[in-house]
């Protein structure tokens, strides 16, 4: 858990903001220092409004890097994401990053199983690129409510699931990967997952049952995003220290380190 690059606050020029699926947008902006330093799994904290409502910054995973450009994916769920989705090319954005601990790529595995629930796909284009670079095999399991929300660009070997069966497997992405693991068994796996807490809890169970290392990226209410406010605890299994901070010690955690609860 060490993150060498100190976060910076910067006004960034919006390059582009496009709707890529229902209420899902790809937003890119220029932030060279971040583009040079960011690692897969890290996030940025963005101020969405110059007024004081909404007040707090909004955290988003860095989804891709293209030259000097940082790309995030965002889904409209409330007023902050709505305002962000309306940003136009050329507008300025107050961005803080890179934040948090990246995924750990150096562990002993040959095949990465990426599991994404909904906009949980966001960090995985960047992770996929990094994994491929170090020669890992990648299989991606992506679940969406329905085909309208599908956004799986820049991912590898995609297995799709939808809640309503409108595309791919009809059911949860956890069931999908469970079925996958039934069939094959020679590879050495590591799971990288991001999505709703319930999905992460189910994967934790699965990882335990199958003895597969799972690294989870958590979401949860934040205020500062930099480890100052103590606002984003996740319970540790370790007896010594009761809580870790999602923003500073995470958002990536091994499923075996933490006691996920619905309140996370």
């Amino acid at each position: 858990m060490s993150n060498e690059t100190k976060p910076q606050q910067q006004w960034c020029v919006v390059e582009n903001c496009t709707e890529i699926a229902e209420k899902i947008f790809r937003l890119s902006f220029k932030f060279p220092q971040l583009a040079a330093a960011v690692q897969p799994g890290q996030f940025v904290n963005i101020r969405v409004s110059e007024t004081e409502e909404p007040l707090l910054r909004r955290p988003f995973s860095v989804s891709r890097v293209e030259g000097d450009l940082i790309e995030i994916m965002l889904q409209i769920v409330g007023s902050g994401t709505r305002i962000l989705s309306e940003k136009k090319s050329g507008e300025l954005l107050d961005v803080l990053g890179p934040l948090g601990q990246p995924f750990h790529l150096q562990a002993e595995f040959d095949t990465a199983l990426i599991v994404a629930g909904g906009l949980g796909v966001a960090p995985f284009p960047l992770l996929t690129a990094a994994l491929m670079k170090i020669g890992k095999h990648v299989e991606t399991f992506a679940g969406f409510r329905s085909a309208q929300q599908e956004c799986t660009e820049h991912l590898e070997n995609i297995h799709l699931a939808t809640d309503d069966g409108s595309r791919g497997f009809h059911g949860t992405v956890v069931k999908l990967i469970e079925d996958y693991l039934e069939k094959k068994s020679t590879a050495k796996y590591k799971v990288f997952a991001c999505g709703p807490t319930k999905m992460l809890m189910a994967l934790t169970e699965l990882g335990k049952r199958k003895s597969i290392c799972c690294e989870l990226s958590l979401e949860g209410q934040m205020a500062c995003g930099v480890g100052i406010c103590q606002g984003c605890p996740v319970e540790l299994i370790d007896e010594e220290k009761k809580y870790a901070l999602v923003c500073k010690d995470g958002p990536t955690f091994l499923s075996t380190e933490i006691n996920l609860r619905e309140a996370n």
Partner: protein
Amino acid sequence: MAAVKTSFKIRGVEFANRVFVASGTFGYGDEMPSLVDVNRLGGIMTKSLSWKPRDGNPPRRIAETTSGMLNSIGLANIGVHAFIANKLPALRRTSTKIIANIAASSIQEYCDVLSLLEQQEGIAGYEINISCPNVKEGGLNFGTDPKMTAAIASSLRKLTDRPLIIKLTPNVTHISEFARAVESEGADAVSVINTLIGMAIDVKTRKPKLSTVTGGLSGPAIKPIALAKVYEVAKAVKIPIFGIGGIADVEDAIEFLLAGATAVQVGTMNFVDPAASTKIVNGMERYAIDQHMIDVQQLVGALEADIKFSVLQSWL
């Protein structure tokens, strides 16, 4: 810039300017260096320190509200011993004044923490968080009981010659009563205000957003309330006031000075804009120069109000 005096003193200790960062919104002063030039600040109020480390409350600890936020951190902190061992050495190397904020659940604990810090170099003074449950009284909040508030001030006064600042809670009918009580027990200053009790509910799950049901409200939403509290206290006591509550920019800070605060603390806005406090430092100096002042002190209590305080609570 032309020379304008920004510094001021409390009990002989000189602070470079009147802009501080509020307890709990800046960690122990060592976490923000890449984002804020801490040496530009008048001072740093540390996260509240208790005798033993505290884990804090279970999640969720934070909920956003309209132009504000609720927190129920539960005073998660590393404890005064770890603070002294791991944080203080680095803090001594900054030129900014460090005020140790102390929280406790008994008068004895307040005394113990302060006594331990008394033996340390590099602490400019103490800010006492009295918005804490008194375990002896079944968890009743110290800060809502004028007698307990006075007792804390008088006990601590005996133990230190450093500046002693009592941080008052706004969740009382007459905050000035509490300010008077601590003034007469020898406190050097008061901090006004701590958070207001608030609540938010998730209508989907029907559960409170915070694990503790209610929490402390902070941020721009509370600024008008904080300002009225500072004004009430300024009419009641002569000791300096640290004005706190929703301060986002230099205009806000100046409002607090005009209402009677000697200095201000920036809290929640540190999360929104880490540069907020240093921008206010610069802006305050600029404002004083533009207004042809020689000392920022000229702003303190300089409100031009033509009516009597007595109509304050009337006929809203």
